[in-house]
């Protein structure tokens, strides 16, 4: 949580933010229409004013909950959400205390999205930045066409994960399904368990000290402290399928 202009964030002794003292704004989706909720969340970004902590109850699988956020908000969702939750997220922290359906945090730009349950397909699809943490499993196509996001999955991921993944890191503490990293560009894939099969142009690569360090850092950011970074194997592009030139390495 940050303190943007106009945020109702008070400063405690020594300048420490004491945001925990703020009451969360509670929105009950059993009574409040979804568009009203999302509009109110967007209004905070537009006006720079309004609550920074939100708690959403009774989502009951609704689609597009907390989409398009563009402020340092903390949003907690109590229950299961539908498609595209926290899609296009910027700056905000969104925590889902349940499962999420297709496309959680799709096209996220920055911020943090945490799902305490499992997620359906295309988690973190096309996301450019930020961190997505899934404590359960992720289904097919996790991180499809990822463009810079970091994704940490506590469980396993389904088939075709990291398909055409361009850049960013996918850390899978469990197993990966078939065709992992098919047609991959320069994203890094770390899997601790088994891999059912590698996709076209995806190969296993050496796990050097810098990579262990990177996984350790990502696990730490994901607050997963009982998984050993040294147990992961690294996968990435063989660079035979796409037109790789060393001059462009910096672009990823």
């Amino acid at each position, binding site marked *: 949580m940050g303190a943007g202009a106009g945020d109702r964030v008070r400063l405690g002794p020594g300048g420490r933010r004491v945001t925990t003292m703020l009451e969360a704004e509670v929105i009950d989706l059993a009574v409040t229409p979804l568009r009203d909720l999302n509009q109110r969340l967007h209004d905070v970004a537009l006006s720079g004013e309004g609550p920074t902590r939100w708690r959403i109850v009774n989502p*009951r*699988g*609704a689609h597009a909950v907390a989409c398009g956020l563009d402020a340092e908000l903390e949003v907690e969702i109590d*229950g*299961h959400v*539908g*498609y595209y939750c926290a899609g296009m997220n910027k700056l905000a922290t969104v925590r889902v205390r349940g*499962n999420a*359906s*297709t496309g959680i945090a799709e096209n996220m730009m920055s911020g943090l999205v945490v799902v305490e*349950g*499992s997620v*359906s*397909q295309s988690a973190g699809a096309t996301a450019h930045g930020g961190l997505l943490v899934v404590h359960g499993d992720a*289904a*097919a196509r996790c991180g499809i066409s990822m463009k810079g996001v970091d994704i940490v999955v506590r469980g396993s991921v*389904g*088939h075709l994960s990291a398909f055409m993944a361009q850049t960013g890191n996918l850390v899978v503490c469990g197993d990966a399904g078939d065709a992992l990293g098919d047609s991959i560009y320069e994203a890094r894939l770390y899997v601790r368990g088994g891999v059912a099969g590698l996709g076209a142009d995806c190969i296993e690569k050496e796990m050097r000290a810098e990579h262990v360090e990177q996984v350790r850092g990502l696990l730490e950011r994901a607050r997963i402290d009982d998984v050993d970074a040294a147990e992961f194997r690294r996968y990435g592009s063989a660079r035979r399928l796409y037109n790789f030139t060393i001059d462009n390495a910096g672009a990823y």
Partner: protein
Amino acid sequence: MCGIVGLFAKSPEIEEHLGAHLVAMLAQMSDRGPDSAGVAVYRDPVADGLTKLTLYSPHRDEDWRTVASAIGGEIDSVRASHAVIVVPTEAGEAESRVRAARSDLRVMSAGRVIELYKDVGLPEIFAATFELANLKGSHALGHTRMATESRVTTEGSHPFSTGLDLCLVHNGSLSNHNTLRRMLRREGIEFQTENDTEVAAGYLEWRLREGASLEQALEGCLEDLDGFYTFAVGTANGFAVLRDPIACKPAVLAETDDWVAMASEYHAIAVLPGADEARMWEPEPGIVYVWDRAAVA
């Protein structure tokens, strides 16, 4: 798109209100399929040697009494354009009596347990017109259709019944249905529409006829069907779920002590009692899931 729901009662309370729960689930899937809707409900098995037919008439104010006496059966119930008639004979004979008496009527389902209702229009309106909420039963499947492959008609709505007490609902589209239909017609399977899902239903009927178990017949789909699908299949004793190996089409399963439910999206399950506490998972691609009453009881 299209939406699928399935509900399997594990407690008498759910059986008592099966129709109401089914309607609530179906309404949640309206946005996935506003063109037409249909349900198969498994209830009140008739005795051995009897056949329960669900008939559809294209005529308003059909004279079902005359139909029933023409085929030597008794009316169980009439709902909108459909009637359930019990005939004291085996299914093949019952169906040929219908064909002989009234070739304009369509047999929507035949068996000892199944009843099948479907029509064009919004799911909520369909459910109200057919008074589905007062149905009791052991399990049911429902479908809301957004048509892609063929016309929006009552006949082209799902479920498609295939063989006795068997029905299929489908989210997706099949690419090789014309080739398969030609092959199945040569095998003697009859088709009433140009619909792709009816071909999948006919495929299952063929495989079962050739001695496959339901599980084997569904596994055969993985080899022989080209296209996208999440299937839910209703049987006299339960239901089965299969997603194609690519698994573009969604499905979620949930289970409590009182029920098992499947749906295209979770919000269709969220309307069930105790959904918040249900065990919930996404069916794996290419894996056949079967619930059987005998196994649950």
